[in-house]
């Protein structure tokens, strides 16, 4: 009953329908009918994602929004290539995505820095793993540039335990940028930070995004965060995880924190909130 209701809703929504069906060939990433089914511990089949389709253009900022258990992290892992989908097609630059790739950067819910490596060594970790230790030197200048970009100039020789949570997550962002990926996948990157630091980090993230012109897919369960950051918000609903609506956010750029109080911003937040309320999916 719920499923057919959702399908009807998203078909009604013209803008969402267009994006869902007509993903342009020029899209950086596309997903077609992606489905993910787990076998749970008591041998039951659990559908984590069902019939997810979308296209993401180069340079776009996408927010994956939904309550816990809606499959947004699962979708992000599939896009990273670390989780194998049950069925469906995912392409990156027109080629099927079959595993992790160097042109996709990843930021996790926690910084996941290696405690025994200095800030600079942490940022250069992907280079050591991919290009080899000998190539490190060629990337050191870039690492320093990214450190500057994420506001950590002069912290090269510090160790993670000497940094605050926000600074650690900046290092993680620098690390995800070091191989100059086309796309950044971020899983609630500031979820562990306090609300004030989180707001500041979101502003920083927009600045970094504008400076680097990466495509960003960011998972969040905060409606306001999604509206503030994204070009388009992918609204997901749980049981099974579905992409129920795609909402373009036509707020001007660059965005500032005081926009949160504007009527347009409130309009988007209310609209998405209503969507969750009518689908009974507010966590």
């Amino acid at each position, binding site marked *: 009953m719920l499923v057919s209701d959702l399908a009807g809703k998203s078909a009604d929504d013209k803008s969402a329908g267009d994006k869902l069906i007509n993903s342009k060939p020029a899209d950086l990433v596309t997903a077609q009918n992606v489905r993910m089914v787990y076998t749970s511990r008591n041998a039951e089949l659990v559908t984590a994602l069902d019939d997810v389709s979308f296209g993401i253009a180069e340079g776009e900022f996408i927010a994956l929004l939904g309550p816990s258990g809606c499959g947004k992290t699962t979708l992000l892992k599939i896009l990273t290539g670390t989780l194998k989908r049950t069925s469906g097609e995912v392409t990156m630059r027109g080629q099927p995505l079959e595993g*992790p*790739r*160097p042109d*996709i950067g990843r930021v*996790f819910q926690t910084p996941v820095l290696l405690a025994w490596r200095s800030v600079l060594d942490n940022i250069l970790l992907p280079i*050591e793993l*991919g290009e080899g230790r000998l190539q490190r030197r060629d990337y050191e200048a870039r690492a320093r540039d990214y450190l500057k970009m994420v506001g950590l100039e002069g912290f090269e020789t510090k160790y993670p335990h000497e940094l605050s949570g926000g600074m650690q997550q900046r290092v993680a962002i620098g690390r995800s940028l070091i191989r100059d990926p086309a796309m950044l996948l971020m899983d609630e990157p500031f979820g562990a930070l306090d609300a004030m630091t989180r707001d500041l980090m979101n502003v920083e993230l927009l600045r970094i995004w504008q400076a680097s012109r990466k495509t960003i897919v960011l998972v969040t369960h905060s409606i306001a965060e999604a509206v503030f950051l994204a070009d388009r918000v992918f609204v997901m609903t749980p049981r099974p995880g579905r992409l129920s609506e795609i909402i373009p956010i036509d707020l001007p750029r660059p965005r500032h924190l005081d926009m949160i109080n504007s009527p347009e911003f409130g309009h988007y937040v209310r609209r998405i909130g209503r969507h969750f309320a009518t689908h009974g999916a507010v966590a």
Partner: protein
Amino acid sequence: MNEATRTPIEIAQSVLLLAGLLAAWEFAVVWLDISPILLPAPSAVAISLVNGVKSGLLIKHLGVTFFETMAGFVLGSVAGLVCGGLIAQSRAIERLLYPYVIAFQTVPKVAIAPLIVIWFGYGVASKVVIAATIAFFPVLANTIVGLRSVPADQLELMAAFMATRRQTLWKVRVPQALPFILVGLDVGAVLAVIGAVVGEFVSAKEGLGFQILQSGFSLDTAGVFAALVLLAVMGIAIHLAMGFLRKKVLYWVDDISPVNFSG
């Protein structure tokens, strides 16, 4: 609490406590007229210790026991590291080997010491082997636990950055295991002293264990205590050295927890 975090006042308190206990012991022996065979006064122990050191006899025995301990520790911990590394590599190897490792560990090493003496002779070699068998297990167990203790998100990070199995081992698993391994080494080194002394008790011509037995036979109780003091000093010195090593190696760990020897 960590030794290094002690304040000067706390250290002074510990020293005062020791001095008080020694003084009480000394006066108790004199006033209650306790036989020196039963319990020598601390002063008598000190005299025996100084004489033994001066004559070079105690120093020679100390050197022998220290060598046995260290050789056994190195042998046992290398074996523990290698076996631990292998077992942590795959669940299949673990299922194959671990029952035997547990069986080996549940046999008291003291009980098999006479066997080892029969196999490896009455000299230094058998003591080294006994010390090694005792030092082996804590290193092995901590290596396995350490290599398995890698948080899932670090493994996901390595997967997302396309690390090979080997890279994940050396760049994440091993550093992550180091705090555990160093605790195992600390425990193993201190336990190796027990192994060496037990071996000397079974049969030896030199070493502090031999010296304790000899002094005991000749009712030279002060001599027994003198050898015990040296053993204690050696054990503490080894533990302090391992603590220093832990601090140096684990430069990224803020709070290095103390080692629990009961395990």
